[in-house]
């Protein structure tokens, strides 16, 4: 992006609407000039940074640090000073397992169920998401009629709210839904998909791919479009077959974007909550209970709520996310260097 000059002077209506704002800004100016005289120009930098830093501090940094303290306390009291210190007890509880592959052998079995579900979900969702969005990006990168229309088609669900996404699909997958209608036409009996452990798990994977695929397609498409076309012309002159050109030119040059996308998908998949919560509510049973929902329910929703335990679980999840983000930043930097060399 670069600084373009905004076009037009704005309608007179807009000007009229701006008048009170202008007046307010001018009114602020006089006291701020006084502040500027006191602080100097450099001090004004602090002034401009302050509101953001304040909000950051209170609503991001503070909770981030409190979280560690929280995870070492027990009881149901809300405020930290009222809570009793229990040391690493919450962590010990989370890790109290006879056999880590079998959630039922664990003291906190729902946690391990959620971890296992999330792991399966991430594995399946990430690989399918990458596959589908890569195919779509490659197709949208072809010489197509009305490409921006097709791009919009795949992008459309990205903007929908997770709640809407969940409801749309809940409606489609229910007994009288569109899916059963289609299958009925093919001679199948209606089935309540979301009451089936396996199908509802598949539904959460499918629906989350449906909702977010367009976003990653867009990033991959941008990467594809950045590949200089003369490379393909050169390859064509050398008699390279298209499949080989894909493996030897497209894929290596797309790799920086692809890696970033993979990590982004991973980070988001680990935190999956909203649409699943609306679609299946974690059920049937605990078949689609993922880690964020476990934290939410342990922290807020259940009768036996245990915020300390939820905090401990969230720190574990945070650790995974930090590792993934660092990988992403590392990959991004590598990609930047590559770009700079070009």
């Amino acid at each position, binding site marked *: 992006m670069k*600084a373009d*000059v*905004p076009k037009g002077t704005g309608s007179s209506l807009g000007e009229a609407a701006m008048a009170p704002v202008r007046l307010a800004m001018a009114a602020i100016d006089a006291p701020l000039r006084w502040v500027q005289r006191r602080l100097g120009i450099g001090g004004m930098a602090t002034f401009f940074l302050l509101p953001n830093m304040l909000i950051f501090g209170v609503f991001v940094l503070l909770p981030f640090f409190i979280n560690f303290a929280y995870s070492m306390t027990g009881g149901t009291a809300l405020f930290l000073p009222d809570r009793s210190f229990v040391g690493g007890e919450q962590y010990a509880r989370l890790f109290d397992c006879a056999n880590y592959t079998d959630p039922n052998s664990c003291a906190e079995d729902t946690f391990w169920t959620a971890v296992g579900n999330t792991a399966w979900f991430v594995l399946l969702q990430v690989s399918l998401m990458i596959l589908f969005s890569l195919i779509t990006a490659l197709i949208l990168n072809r010489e197509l009629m009305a490409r921006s229309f097709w791009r919009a088609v795949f992008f459309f669900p990205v903007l929908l709210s997770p709640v809407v996404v969940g409801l749309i699909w809940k409606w489609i997958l229910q007994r009288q839904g569109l899916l059963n209608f289609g299958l009925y036409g093919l001679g199948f009996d209606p089935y309540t998909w979301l009451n089936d452990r396996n199908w509802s798990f598949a539904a959460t994977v499918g629906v989350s791919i449906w909702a977010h695929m367009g976003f990653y397609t867009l990033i991959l498409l941008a990467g594809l479009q950045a590949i200089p076309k003369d490379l393909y012309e050169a390859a064509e002159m050398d008699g390279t077959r298209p499949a080989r050109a894909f493996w030897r030119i497209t894929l290596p040059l797309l790799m920086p974007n692809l890696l970033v996308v993979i990590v982004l998908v991973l980070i988001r998949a680990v935190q999956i909550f909203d649409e699943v919560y609306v679609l299946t509510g974690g059920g049937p049973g605990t078949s689609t209970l993922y880690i964020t929902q476990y934290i939410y329910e342990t922290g807020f929703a259940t009768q036996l709520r245990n915020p300390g335990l939820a905090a401990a679980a969230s720190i574990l999840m945070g650790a995974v996310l930090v590792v993934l983000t660092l990988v992403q930043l590392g990959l991004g930097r590598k990609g930047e260097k590559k770009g700079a060399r070009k």
Partner: protein
Amino acid sequence: MGHIKLTNVTKSFGAVDVLHDINLEIKDGEFVVFVGPSGCGKSTLLRMIAGLEKPTGGELAIDGKVVNDVPAADRGLAMVFQSYALYPHMSVRQNLAFGLENTRMPKAEIAERIGEAARMLEIEAYLERRPGQLSGGQRQRVAIGRAIVRRPVAFLLDEPLSNLDAELRGSTRAELAALHARLSATMIYVTHDQVEAMTLADRIVVLRAGRIEQIGTPLELYNRPANRFVAGFIGSPHMNFLEGTLEAAGAGTAVATLKGGHQLQVPIADGTAAAEGPITLGVRPHHITLDAGENSIPAKIRLVEALGSETVLHADVAGQKILIVAPGQHNLAQGDDVRLSLSAAPIHLFNDRGIRLERAV
């Protein structure tokens, strides 16, 4: 009004010293040009006067008042930037008015000042346009106009012509000179182009690596450069420098022996005879003549550039490169042998530290 004085001013960015011990006095109404190669600190010096940078040491005074701690806005100066720095989202009129509005000047007076400046600069026709809709030359005028309406004690101009094409640059230069004559305001002008410096300046300040090399009128710098750097920087094409040795030969004269054994008699001032030893001779290309007469120097032509009215010859004198600008046209080709005469040329002598030896002319 418009008297600017710098005393022992220094500036460092972190550990890097950009300006060393600058002493400079600019008189009211004077047109002073800061010139030097890029990175010499001339822009930093200007920005320091403007108040956009703070001096690290020394004292900066405007009209006798020390302004080291006065913010840019309160120094009463106006600046024309290299990129013009016109506000792209405002019309030309708003650009001119912005600075005046900030001083809470009455609307009528703002309009009057803008009208006056617009007439002077002939920009009335596009007062309602945005800078993006103007040509480079028009933008340049607006930038100057924005300075004029402020009626500043001094104008600061930071390479204002560098973004114009060659032709426009020539005509704008002349207009700037006329403008200075008309406003008779102090102007400080930064450029790396010595032609601009020579044509515009009352006085030129030559800077190199954060130090003032010489201050003087254009002709002073041309005729009596303080050192080898100034000699090489002022004048186009550049002065030729030939290595040699100097021996005293009686009162007021010396004999310079060029590499290759050729000897020249040069007048020197009394008291500089002690500068015997290795020396650099400086001679301007225009002052060398093609002449096979007595005491002429043999040279071999390396390249001929025929410009019509004059001919630029690149030649070789005993292994040293030399440039000659000969008036008229000459039927010479690469590899030809010619003989050069320096007898009519003012010869500058520079000692081994590059300092010019005063010559009795």
